[in-house]
């Protein structure tokens, strides 16, 4: 019933059009994977090898030990030693180093006396997330060094220095590898962005070329036209989904702990939401150029900023949490992460599935509603 002759005819025409345009078809299949591979390998928010310079006014074995600890960690790499304090600012402006350290002249003496010694750190703040990460790595290495100092001091007779050791454990992603959250996250982004974009052109294109009039004067019903237009993009999205899944597993080695069936059901619903949103845009707008730009904007920001891709929704501010709650990618993101890394099942996520289904139905209803309005 849902797949009657007219729906099949529209879908078949659309599939033929996609299939005959070989360049388009190739790109529609390859570009999403290219994006995935580029991000999966290259998007590392981990800060590594930050070049730094040191002005060591102490030049003792202790100060060298401290500098060594920084340089040997893979977070920082020693660019060079400085002789005067002036050049640090200059080099930060030039961008050749991102961190400058100034070690005071009496560094070793203060430490030997059991005092505090102040090391100045000048961090390039033009990329704030990097500055924040650099600072926390710097603090962490200094902290370890301080623990070592406390331990040595403790070994001296007659001293009592308290120290607390923190044992850390990360669940679900024990090595804290960023690919384990970026690759599943990219599945959410790609399966939103591309279906929206590709579907957004389909109806508006017929309007520009005038072939939409064939539809207007044919006996096809509105919902049949919308359904027929949706199906090929759902299929294209499904191919993308399977390829992303395979790559995430075989190429990136992301652990998959949950049920593939559940993920596929969720992905189908989600793809339906994406393609339906693209279709709605296509029905509302008048030119292909406008539709494409609108599709890009309306899919990148929700999928990257508010879906919880980089920062958990529950640590966002109130407005961020509100935006996250009304945008569909958030619901799929929760499921993808939960299924991939935590191995959770349908009993946790049935409400997410329901939300996606509601989105799908309302977007389709809106598309059908607005389609005929444009005739007159």
């Amino acid at each position, binding site marked *: 019933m849902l797949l009657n002759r007219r729906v099949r005819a529209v879908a078949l025409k659309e599939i033929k059009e996609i299939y005959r345009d070989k*360049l388009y078809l190739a790109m529609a299949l390859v*570009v999403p994977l290219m994006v995935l591979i580029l991000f999966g390998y290259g*998007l*590392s*928010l*981990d*800060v*590594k090898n930050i070049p730094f310079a040191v002005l060591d006014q102490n030049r003792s074995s202790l100060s060298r030990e401290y500098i060594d600890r920084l340089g040997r960690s893979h977070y920082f*790499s020693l660019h060079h030693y400085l002789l005067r304090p002036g050049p640090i*600012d200059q080099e*930060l402006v030039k*961008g050749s180093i991102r961190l400058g350290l100034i070690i005071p002249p009496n560094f070793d003496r203060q*430490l030997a006396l*059991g005092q*505090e*010694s*102040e*090391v100045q*750190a*000048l*961090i*390039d*703040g*033009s990329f704030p997330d990097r500055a*924040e990460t650099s600072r926390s790595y710097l*603090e*962490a290495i*200094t902290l370890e060094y301080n623990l070592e*100092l*406390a331990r040595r*001091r403790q070994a001296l007779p007659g*001293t009592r*220095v*308290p120290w*607390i050791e*923190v044992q*850390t*454990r*990360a*669940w*679900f*992603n024990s090595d804290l590898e960023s690919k384990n959250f970026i690759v599943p996250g990219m599945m959410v982004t790609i399966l939103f962005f591309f279906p929206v974009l590709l579907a957004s*052109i389909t109806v508006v294109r017929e309007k*520009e070329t005038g072939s939409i009039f064939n539809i207007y004067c044919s006996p096809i019903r509105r919902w049949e036209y919308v359904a027929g237009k949706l199906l090929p993009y759902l299929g294209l999205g499904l191919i993308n989904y399977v390829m992303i899944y395979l790559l995430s597993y075989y190429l990136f080695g992301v652990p998959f702990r949950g049920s593939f069936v559940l993920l596929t059901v969720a992905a189908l619903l989600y793809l339906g939401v994406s393609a339906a949103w693209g279709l709605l845009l296509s029905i509302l707008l*008048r*030119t*292909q*150029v406008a539709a*494409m730009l*609108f599709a890009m904007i309306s899919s990148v920001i929700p999928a990257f*900023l*508010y879906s919880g891709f*980089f*920062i*958990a929704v529950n*640590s966002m501010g109130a*407005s*961020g949490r509100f*935006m996250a709650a009304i945008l569909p990618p958030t619901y799929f993101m929760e499921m993808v992460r*939960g299924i991939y890394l935590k191995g959770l099942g349908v009993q946790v996520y049935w409400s997410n599935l329901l939300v996606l289904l509601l989105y799908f139905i309302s977007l389709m209803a809106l598309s059908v509603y607005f389609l005929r309005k444009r005739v007159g």
Partner: protein
Amino acid sequence: MFQGLLALLHKEYLQFSRDRALVFIVLYVFTVDIYIAGAGFNLEVRNYPTAIYDRDNTQISVQLAEKFRQPYFRVTRLIYSDSEMETLLNKGTVSLVLVIPHNFARSLAEKNHAELQVITDGTLSNTALLALAYAGQIAQEFAQEVGGRWGQSEPGAAHLRPQVKLKPRIAFNPNQKFEWFTSLIELFNIITVVSIFLPAAAAVREKEAGTIEQLLVTPVTPVTIMLAKVISMASIVLAASCLSLFLVIYPVFSLPWRGNLFLYLAATALYVFSATGVGLFISTVCRTLPQTILLLLMLLTPILFLSGSWTPPEAMPVWMRLITYLSPLKYFISIAYGILLRNAGLGHLWPELAGMTVLGLFLFSFCAFRFRQRFG
């Protein structure tokens, strides 16, 4: 030729302004979109949802637990069993659990040394890493405080604690304003997207509608047709980028007035022209707008991605770092950032400026050559 150019320019502006939806979108991306990116995106760890599992329940352990507070941590739960911890982490209600083991206070008092466990949800590895670093810092500060108290009750050298104290200072952006960074990066990205997309779309549209044939039989040369598209679209992008700089970024995000604005605008103009060259290249390859959008994405993703605004170049593998030199956006970001945030002048920036000019000239002349070949 000049008269022909003027007439064509008039035509391009007219065509652009007639597409209301397109004008709206261009205005939107340069104002509201930049505002959203600036206000909404934040990679800092703030209000990290935390639960405390205090198995010691002594005065000391309660004091320690109290140190986990805002801005970094937001304690939402006190938990009393392992299973509760598991459910909360599974559901993502909390992202960090501080476990204070039994005998924490006794061990600290008797052995001068105690252990803490910090368990995080590792799904979002970047924020988890930062949160772990903060937790370590808090524990260290607490140990120091305890030592200080011991020192007060029994003065002498026994409790002195040698330590390196970091005095970090963030240069150029001392209050770590993320909105400066995110809004500017968004502006640069949008300049790139729009100045590649608009001319590509404008040229391909003529192909689709067949009007390019009409233009080619007029006395204007293909180069004039190309120049008209480049100049009109580049000037629109430039005007819109000024709008967003003076209407959104300076007033709303209170970016300080630093740097030479003329230098910035000149660099932007140069950049926009080289980017429109890429757009024209796309138009020589594609026949239809759907193809255009996919090829655009294929070229755009690496350009945006390799610019260093997502991933610091130091953290990339070497081969990828070498390819970044091919992304014109990389040069533009260093230049624009250098001017607007670090007040760098020509003296500092000439290598990047030279790089961008050479790359831009190369791109532009290559594309002009292809355009002439294709359309001439």
